[in-house]
């Protein structure tokens, strides 16, 4: 199935879409409440099917996965993973991503006008492989005191993510794709990833392709982030690079993220923070979640609503001249329709 960017429109009943909503923990519930309020105020034809996931049994997450399979689209907050629990208790977020095969995590980091940051004119698209790599959760203790953790890289998934990256670059009119790797040390694993990227790049002669080692990449990102255009990488490096870029454009409260698979799409904040320390205090920044909901509306082909809400959010940010490190009251938003 040669698809990637052409999904069939999700199920529509009576002209309204149904979207699964997973509140998660920490600041998730309050941010998603804001989204619901805003959608109701703007008369967006989307109904939310709320599925709560509390982190103890597997049933909850299986219900959530079934709901997403049914509706095709979801909006979620981050589900907390208590790392003091034994290894048999897998991360719920990871389980969701792998069960639904949401293989591409896409994040668009753009400098926003009105947000003071150290670097300006940043416009980077980060495409991160979302299912394998270091997040395979395959660990064992072969001898007491010696733990092995497996990082899996497969040809199929590497080709898939590289294909996705180049197709997206072409669709958005981007000029260059950079693969981030550590193939000088992990010769077989990252070497395979790099080779797959090169193979795919050969089929897109209009887009320049280069590769950069991950430690050099982070150094370049903090000194000259304007040099990057589109970046594609395996799972863990994606985690690092996306967090660095989110920090560069103004923090975790500003950047939306999307996880795409062949059949399903799940939208959330890019840096996936649970934010327990700021939960329920009305100070979390809703911008990331609101922009993620706009990405979701674009996916559902409700472009007008998406543009309207996006403009309202960005205008509000610009006009009130938000200083990022000051607490900001979530609820009052004025909108110009």
């Amino acid at each position, binding site marked *: 199935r040669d698809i990637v960017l052409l999904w069939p429109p999700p199920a529509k009943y009576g002209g309204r879409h149904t979207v699964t909503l997973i509140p998660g923990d920490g600041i998730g519930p309050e941010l998603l409440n804001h989204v619901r309020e805003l959608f109701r105020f703007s008369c967006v034809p989307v109904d939310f099917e709320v599925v709560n996931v509390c982190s103890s049994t597997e049933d909850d997450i299986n219900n959530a996965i079934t709901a997403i399979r049914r509706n095709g689209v979801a909006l979620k907050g981050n589900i907390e993973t208590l790392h003091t629990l034994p290894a048999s208790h897998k991360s719920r977020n990871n389980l969701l991503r792998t069960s639904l095969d949401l293989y591409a995590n896409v994040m668009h980091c753009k400098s926003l006008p009105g947000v003071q940051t150290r670097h300006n004119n940043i416009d980077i698209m980060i495409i991160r492989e979302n299912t394998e790599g*270091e997040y395979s*959760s395959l660990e064992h203790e072969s001898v007491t005191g010696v733990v092995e*953790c*497996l*990082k899996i890289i497969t040809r199929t998934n590497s080709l898939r993510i590289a294909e996705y990256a180049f197709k997206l670059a072409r669709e958005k009119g981007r000029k260059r794709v950079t693969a981030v790797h550590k193939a000088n040390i992990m010769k077989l694993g990252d070497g395979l990833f790099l080779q797959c990227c090169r193979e795919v790049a050969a089929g897109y002669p209009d887009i320049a392709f280069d590769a950069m080692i991950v430690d050099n990449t982070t150094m370049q990102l903090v000194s000259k982030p304007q040099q990057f255009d589109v970046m594609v990488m395996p799972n863990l490096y994606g985690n*690092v690079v996306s967090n660095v870029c989110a920090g560069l454009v103004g923090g975790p409260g500003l950047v939306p993220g999307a996880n795409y698979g062949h059949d399903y799409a799940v939208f959330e904040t890019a840096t996936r923070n649970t934010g327990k320390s700021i939960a329920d205090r009305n100070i979390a920044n809703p911008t990331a979640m609101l922009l993620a909901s706009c990405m979701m509306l674009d996916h559902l082909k409700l472009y007008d609503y998406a543009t309207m809400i996006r403009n309202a959010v960005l205008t509000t940010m610009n006009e009130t001249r938000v200083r990022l490190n000051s607490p900001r009251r979530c609820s009052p938003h004025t909108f110009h329709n």
Partner: protein
Amino acid sequence: TALISSSPRRRVESWFRPRRGMQTVTLIPGDGIGPEISTAVMKIFEAAKAPIQWEEKNVTAIKGPGGKWIIPPEAKESMDKNKIGLKGPLKTPIAAGHPSMNLLLRKTFDLYANVRPCMSIEGYKTPYTDVDLVTIRENTEGEYSGIEHTIVDGVVQSIKLITEDASRKIAEYAFEYAKNNQRASVTAVHKANIMRMSDGLFLRKCRQVAENYRDIKFTEMYLDTVCLNMVQDPTQFDVLVMPNLYGDILSDLCAGLIGGLGVTPSGNIGANNVAIFESVHGTAPDIAGLDLANPTALLLSAVMMLRHMGMHDYSKKIETACFNTIRDKKVLTGDLGGKSKCSEFTAEICQRVRDMD
């Protein structure tokens, strides 16, 4: 409080014994710009009248008995005797057949801890000011074990190895370093939400060691949170301790915050009290021999070495001279934004050092 581990309490190696009298240090000039920056450092030390005697050794890889690649025996003997080394950049020729020189040195002396103090240099402006943190990275295992297999065609597995011993050693070193350098807190960086067993083991060991250092604050933070906060506000971090891969990425990230590898010092601590301090930049073959190189990285590593040996007065003197020179911006090498030669930069620092006496 009783220790949780069942093994008997190990004596923590005393890395930071102050030394008196003339000390001999093995100097490995390296390739490319290595020799000129080593000469610069030697000149500055002479001007400061530091009690250091240099023993220059070469470390090109040779084939030892049994066909294994080793460093020359005289170099190894010298290091074992002196215990302290200063190294310039080494090149690894492609298709030489032997592994990288840095890897060889690491294996030979079991250099398990890589320490990089990152402090903003007044006078070398970057978008980040007031950075003052130290990254301590486990250097022997983790993701860089080099154990990889092709399971079936198209599926590759890399093994990340975390052992109790190595985690304990690096945690102990981190806390000792914090204690000896008056640092207030140590943060363990991990991804235990995903890699429950491996990073979980690392964290457990850090927690256990933290029990013995009650006056130093111990916190744990996810790798992605550290990255996010580091680029927004690096002043919140003090000492960071972490496994190999995260350390590699974070130490280079922090180097980028203060201005790059040309101004970042680095030290490697090994078993048996061996310590090798090095500059982490490349050999820069395009400017080698042209007297254009910037010796700051190697100089600051040498200052780190003096501190390690307990010679705090000399280290302060040389470091202050170096920072003042950069701050005044009158004599700067090309990469720092000036037009002077390496020898002029060195002479300026020597003059300041002499003026301080």
